[in-house]
């Protein structure tokens, strides 16, 4: 009861000294708000960049012909002519643990009317693996179906791209139904996603007269699996090829790590600015606390003359400081989160911010520490004075 009442005086202290309370809280609010805002913006930029890399297809692993990139097979999107990869290899890879999706990729150029059109012959899972965006219809699921690149519709069908679905095309005396239209691909980072038209792997092999595929694309189940899955794919295909290393396995990892390095540096830079804001806020808090110490020292003297123990005095001031820090911290977090949401809307070049619990907690914790230390330390010094000393201060 007694303790509760003394603690309540801490709250009372905040209310009656509202101007000081507001000023002190402002320091905490600005510090915490800046930390939350800047780290969230940094996170947003990082996520945006790794997101763009992942848009190439999450956890993408590519198997290409040739023991080294560019050697023999003609690179990731080269013709299948000298490739030794087969649809059977793709099927074998699909059964490996940690593999989510697998698709072959065969490039073929086929005549339609007067034109030559290049197609990628792929499995239905390719849509998911490479995140193919369709502006209309659906992806190739069966033989005899074709998805046209938006840029290829012109001249092939006498309708605007939006109405291409449902049309039929004749390729080498076979009828193909247009089931979808692929959006123009954004090159983004890394190996270009061709602005491609698609047919099924089987049709592409038939059209090209080949038995090998130009590329096998694999999606690992999780990013953490990519390394192990890569090893398994290498072993599996090597076994199927009687130990010949006539292919290479490429991951996104290298690409990602390059960009993560850059964004990590950006994060550190932003965190530095945020840290300085917190420090400035902390100095503001300290300043106000020190300025009010004279008045408070006298108050402490009066309380001790009336029978307060040092513990009573500290309890009151500790509670006051904790409340102040918590309230200021909470408002700072609210402000920081609000800014993180609003700022990318105003400055549309910024990617959406990503607020993380860890960073909010850290900002909050540091501010609470600053508030409590600078709130209690002067009070502690004053509480240790003899009442007569404390009362003499004006």
């Amino acid at each position, binding site marked *: 009861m007694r303790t509760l009442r003394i603690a309540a005086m801490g709250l009372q202290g905040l209310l009656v000294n509202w101007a000081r309370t507001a000023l002190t809280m402002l320091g905490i609010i600005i510090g915490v708000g800046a930390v939350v805002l800047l780290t969230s913006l940094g996170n947003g930029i990082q996520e945006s960049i790794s997101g763009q890399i992942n848009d190439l297809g999450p956890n993408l692993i590519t198997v290409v012909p040739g023991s080294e990139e560019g050697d023999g097979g003609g690179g990731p999107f080269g013709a299948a002519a000298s490739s030794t990869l087969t649809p059977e290899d793709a099927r074998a890879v699909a059964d490996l643990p940690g593999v989510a999706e697998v698709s072959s990729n065969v490039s073929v150029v086929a005549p339609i009317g007067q034109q030559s059109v290049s197609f990628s012959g792929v499995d239905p899972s390719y849509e998911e693996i490479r995140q193919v965006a369709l502006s209309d219809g659906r992806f190739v699921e069966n033989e005899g179906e074709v998805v046209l690149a938006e840029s290829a519709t012109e001249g092939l069908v006498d309708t605007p791209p939006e109405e291409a679905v449902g049309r039929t095309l004749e390729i080498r005396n076979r009828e193909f139904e247009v089931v979808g239209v692929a959006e123009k691909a954004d090159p983004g980072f890394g190996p270009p996603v061709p602005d491609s038209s698609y047919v099924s792997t089987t049709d592409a092999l038939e059209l090209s007269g080949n038995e090998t595929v130009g590329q096998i694309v694999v999606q690992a189940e999780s990013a953490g699996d990519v390394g192990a899955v890569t090893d398994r794919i290498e072993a599996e295909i090597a076994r199927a090829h009687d130990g010949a290393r006539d292919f290479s396995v490429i991951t996104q990892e290298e690409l990602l790590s390059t960009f993560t390095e850059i964004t990590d540096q950006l994060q550190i830079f932003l965190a530095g600015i945020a840290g300085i804001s917190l420090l400035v806020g902390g100095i503001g808090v300290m300043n106000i606390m020190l300025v009010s110490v004279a008045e408070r020292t006298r108050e402490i003297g*009066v*309380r*001790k003359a*009336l029978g*307060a*123990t040092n*513990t009573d005095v500290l309890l009151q001031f500790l509670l006051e400081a904790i409340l102040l820090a918590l309230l200021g911290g909470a408002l700072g977090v609210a402000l920081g989160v609000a800014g993180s949401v609003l700022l990318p809307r105003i400055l549309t070049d910024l990617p959406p911010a990503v607020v993380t619990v860890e960073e909010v907690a850290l900002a909050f914790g540091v501010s609470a520490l600053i508030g409590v230390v600078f709130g209690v330390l002067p009070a502690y010094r004053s509480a240790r004075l*003899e*009442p*007569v000393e404390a009362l003499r201060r004006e």
Partner: protein
Amino acid sequence: MAVIEAREMTKTYGRGRASSRRSWGQPARRGGDWVSVVGPSGSGKSTLMNLLGLLDRPTSGSYVLDGRDVSRLKGGELAAARRDLIGFVFQSYNLLPRQSAQGNVELPMVYAGVRGKERRRRAREALERVGLANRAGHNPTELSGGQKQRVAVARALVNEPALLLADEPTGNLDTASGESILDLFEELNAGGVTLMVVTHDEGVARRAGRIVEIRDGRVFSDERSDGAGA
């Protein structure tokens, strides 16, 4: 029973002057004494009051207050002794500026652990006793000097201390307000409160039944007075 028994108590400030008291032959008695402490400015009156009020520590000597040796008390015990045995009235009131009269009077009871209802009732009674029942909700800034000092007296009395110490209680007041505080003291004294009042005003001093004179940090004289005042 003797309230104050201070023996060979001294206080030395750094390299400054010492204010010491020899054994006090006739200590104040509980329930009735009113002692004035007089002396020129700088003679050590406040130092004495602060020592007797446990607001400061003596350099040497022993001090028995209301039958308890309080000269070696520390921390919580010392705070408890201040709280239970002593009421202090300062020249400059020392009310908490942002608390109502009621809040100020409740404060010593908060530290004594008196519960809410009882605390409010006793604070109201104490304010009534000093004639300020209708000012309970006012802040010190809304009160005159005399009223502030009455609140301070109510606050000093509310834990029923063995001894009420007042250091120049009328020093900041006009004559009329000062008189009314002294009248209040007289009333309290008649009701059994033991009082010790520091003053450099002869008229104020003579209201007491006993006058102790301090000079150069020592008790110079200790005389009975008729208590008739000026």
